[in-house]
């Protein structure tokens, strides 16, 4: 353990160029083709997560547009029923598992270590492993569509429809194994985020000074840890039902189809908040930057996040109101579901109070946040409506629900996310995104979104169930569907314009500099894009807005004494972030990638023969051994 020198007031600590070079080469990621599979740095992994997730976002979005074309007019035959069913299954699954969770985790992996002022995640190699697992699982899952063997049992994959009898073939098998596999990736990221946030914060960043985005990442990570095991258990049971003939979900032999629904939604409802929570963190990050003053109600916002995290686990039965469960029990879930409106209401009004009377810069990130207010409040209100059991019995599994959850997920998560991308893009790539294109893209997306999804409320009330590939003309749903389809083109144009903007700005954007927005958090205290080591010195924090606190001061206190010839980071205490140890981070290696390949061989092979379980098990064990082979870092040098 190294000794940490206390910061000396007024002394300016600078690094010589040689020192910086040494630090940079210590934290450098290897290059070359094989080198591509080796990096463990949090920014490299985080960026890959985000980029991969956006690839899936645009692919799954394309499926949505194709589905809208099919529904554009009654009795359309643009897509066959089977293909349509594959499309909505893959669209839903990909948006939830391959886009929403990974993109939020990716941003957290990229931003959180810099925000808390450290140099990497707590377990860099596990981080890399998680990415390859996600990449392989996602690619196999989406690729199944190319061979027309994609699952077609819906994203919540209800049994018995998802059982081997009604869904023969590989489709649902791919769903169950790949989802389990991808959840492993989510769990690794969650564990890492928790440890990184609790143990690697810069000295002085006590819990009550932690940026709200970090808080939201922490709550999200805890929710993942408690929610994901349910879906892993459920899909493992389903794999067993399908592959080796257990009858856990088959009613003829005493199995229970509703068990799947309980397990699935025990995961599935918190999942919604897992997606929403980081977006709330992004909003709490963007608002103070664009108002240039502290946010109102920091404690209330933190408590709202935590409360949402807890309440989120008590709502799952509201997906099952029509299954014939006892009335009294369901009433409890009705009240609990409606209760979630309170922490959300507190947050919304804290943000309004924070913006009240401020001189604001209406740049693209803020526009997306303001769009959130309109869309998310509509989605929240319809959410309270569907929590009311009798009303839910009418609109459950109709287009009203489709409207509701797109309002919550696109309005609540995707809009802030894109705002966040506009906000952090300069940090990630060193250039600003184009403001004019950004504003046009916002208005296209905002108008397109509402034109697409608002009419769906009415379609649902008029009796249009979800997941139907066509409908008869005399039902009178044609005009609103046509309107929704037109809207989806505008929405797609909005998102594509942002994509174009991101690509264009890579080489034509104005150079960003360290801190283009005047932000208060630590990730802006380093060049854009950040060097390999994030911060030249680990900073010392004395308030909630460290960069604002040090405005007008010539220097700021930093940690000195960390070695620059090996990957050292500072470990601090959980509550007060007092320095208490130095950890040496592992270097780049190819073993996490090979482990991911071994594990995925096992997961995929199970679809063909149960013995592949052994291949996966021993393959992973062997590669893990190599991965953990001690390198005695304290003797290397």
């Amino acid at each position, binding site marked *: 353990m190294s000794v940490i020198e206390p910061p000396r007031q007024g002394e300016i600590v600078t690094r010589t160029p040689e020192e910086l070079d040494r630090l940079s080469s210590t934290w450098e990621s290897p290059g070359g083709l094989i080198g591509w599979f080796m990096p463990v740095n949090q920014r490299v992994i985080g960026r890959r997560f985000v980029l991969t997730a956006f690839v899936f976002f645009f692919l799954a979005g394309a499926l949505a547009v194709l589905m809208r074309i099919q529904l554009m007019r009654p009795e359309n035959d643009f897509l066959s*029923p089977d293909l349509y*069913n594959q499309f909505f299954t893959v669209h839903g699954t990909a948006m939830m598992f391959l886009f929403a969770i990974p993109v939020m985790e990716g941003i957290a992996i990229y931003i959180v270590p810099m925000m808390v002022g450290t140099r990497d995640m707590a377990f860099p190699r596990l981080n890399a492993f998680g990415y390859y697992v996600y990449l392989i699982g996602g690619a196999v899952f989406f690729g199944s569509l190319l061979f027309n063997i994609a699952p077609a049992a819906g994203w919540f994959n209800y049994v*018995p*429809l998802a059982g081997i009898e009604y869904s023969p073939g590989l489709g649902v098998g791919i769903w169950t194994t790949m989802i389990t596999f991808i959840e492993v990736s989510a769990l690794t990221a969650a564990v890492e985020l928790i440890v990184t946030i609790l143990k690697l914060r810069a000295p002085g960043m006590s819990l009550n000074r932690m940026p709200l985005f970090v808080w939201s990442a922490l709550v999200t990570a805890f929710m993942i840890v408690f929610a994901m095991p349910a879906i892993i258990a459920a899909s493992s049971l389903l794999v067993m039902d399908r592959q080796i003939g257990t009858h856990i979900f088959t*009613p*003829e032999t005493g*199995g*229970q*189809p*509703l068990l799947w629904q309980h397990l699935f939604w025990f995961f599935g409802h918190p999942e919604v908040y897992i997606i929403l929570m980081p977006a709330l963190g992004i909003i709490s990050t963007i608002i103070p930057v664009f108002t240039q003053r502290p946010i*109102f109600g920091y404690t*209330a916002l933190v408590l709202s996040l935590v409360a949402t995290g807890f309440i989120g686990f008590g709502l799952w039965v509201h997906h099952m109101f*029509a*299954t*014939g469960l006892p*009335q009294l029990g369901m*009433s409890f879930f*009705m*009240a609990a579901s*409606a209760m979630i*409106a*309170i922490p959300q*209401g*507190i947050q*919304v*009004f*804290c943000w*309004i*109070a924070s*913006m*009240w*009377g*401020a*001189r*604001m810069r209406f740049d693209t990130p803020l526009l997306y946040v303001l769009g959130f*207010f309109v869309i998310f*409040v*509509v989605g929240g*209100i*319809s959410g309270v409506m569907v*929590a*009311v*059991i*009798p*009303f839910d*019995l*009418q609109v*459950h*599994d109709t287009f009203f629900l489709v409207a509701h959850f797109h309002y919550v997920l696109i309005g609540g998560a995707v809009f802030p996310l894109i705002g966040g991308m506009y906000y952090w893009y300069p940090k990630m790539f060193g250039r600003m995104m184009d403001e004019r294109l950004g504003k046009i893209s916002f208005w296209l997306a905002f108008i397109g979104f509402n034109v697409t999804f608002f009419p769906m409320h009415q379609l649902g*009330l*008029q*009796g249009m*169930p979800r*997941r139907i590939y066509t409908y*008869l*003309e*005399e*039902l*009178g749903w044609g*005009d609103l569907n046509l309107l929704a389809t037109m809207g989806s083109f505008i929405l797609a144009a909005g998102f594509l314009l942002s994509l174009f903007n991101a690509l264009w700005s890579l080489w034509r954007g104005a150079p960003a500099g360290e801190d283009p927005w005047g932000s208060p958090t630590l990730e802006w205290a380093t060049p854009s894009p950040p060097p390999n080591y994030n911060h030249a010195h680990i900073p010392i924090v004395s308030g909630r807005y460290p960069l604002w606190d040090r405005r007008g001061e010539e220097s700021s206190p930093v940690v000195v004494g960390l070695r620059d010839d090996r990957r050292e980071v500072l470990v601090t205490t959980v509550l007060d972030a007092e320095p208490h140890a130095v950890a040496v981070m592992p270097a780049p290696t190819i073993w996490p990638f090979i482990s991911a390949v071994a594990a995925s061989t096992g997961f995929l092979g199970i679809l063909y023969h149960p013995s592949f379980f052994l291949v996966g098990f021993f393959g992973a064990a062997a590669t893990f051994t190599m991965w953990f082979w001690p390198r005695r870092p304290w003797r290397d040098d």
Partner: protein
Amino acid sequence: MLVNSVRSALRFSRRWRPCAGATPPAFIAILLQGCSGAQNSLDPASRSAALIANLWWGMLVIGTVIMIGVLIALFIGLGRGWGGTERPLSSRGSFLLVVAGGVVTPMLVIMAMVIVGVSVGREIATRPQSGPIVEVIGRLWWWELRYLDGDGEVIATTANEMHIPVGQPVRLRLTSENVIHSFWAPQLQGKTDLIPGQVNESWIEAERAGVYRGQCSEYCGVQHALMSFIVVAEPLEEFERWLSLQAEPATEPSSDETRRGQQVFLEQGCAGCHTIRSVSEVGEIGPDLTHLAGRRTLAAATVPNTKGHLGGWISDPQRIKPGNKMPSTVMEPADLQALLAFLGSLE
């Protein structure tokens, strides 16, 4: 919406039109409500559906007020800073804003909604103790309906067309032998799932005579979209006449052509899946056809029951409902004509 309603009311659909509400007074009434359609939850035909529709209108008003309130707060807040001078709320003002908007308002709204929701929920969930019992069995992808007597014995079996007496509750026992389905006739009652291995109970009651449409609302496989049914609410005598007819075996073929049609039915393999009581009772995969000619629709309320549609359905069912369980049957035109004549005689 208005244009849409007018257009669909004026247009003579090539398909069977389920709604009797196209007569002028009813049509105007529907227009005033802003919506129309035989599967429209906002055009209720029962007390339960009316309670829920009213609940919706109430929640819509409250929701709209809240939405407007939030937007006004947002716009005032943003407007105060317009023009370059900072005019933030005092921390006391902010606190009051958050408490009023974020705690008190949602709390009141939630309490009101839960109280109303529980009481409406209790009312629609209270099942009647008397009235006809219909066992609804979800099949792939159609509805088997069995009318039961008080001892649970089957009186009559039919498919996709439920007749009920007006003004009398009908008890439903819902189950499935394959995957999960959901029974939903929006004008009459909220939905209830049909889950294999358990029997769920629900009930419907129509306050006025008419034909109401319903549709499966739990995704159940490739033809989930076209798994519909109709509910015909009629006066008690008519209902009883209908039910006693359904209980009868099929009428004996009376002409040469229908006799030949019956032969075709047996020889072409139709009987492998379809039952016609008194002709062949082994088929279980497709609907019972004993009184097919009396039904208004074919293929789970997808096309009207006309001779042309029936011929098209028998020749190429995969064109109308791709992926359904009925194979195409190739036969001599004369055989097909005879078969159609026979099926057409099954009143």
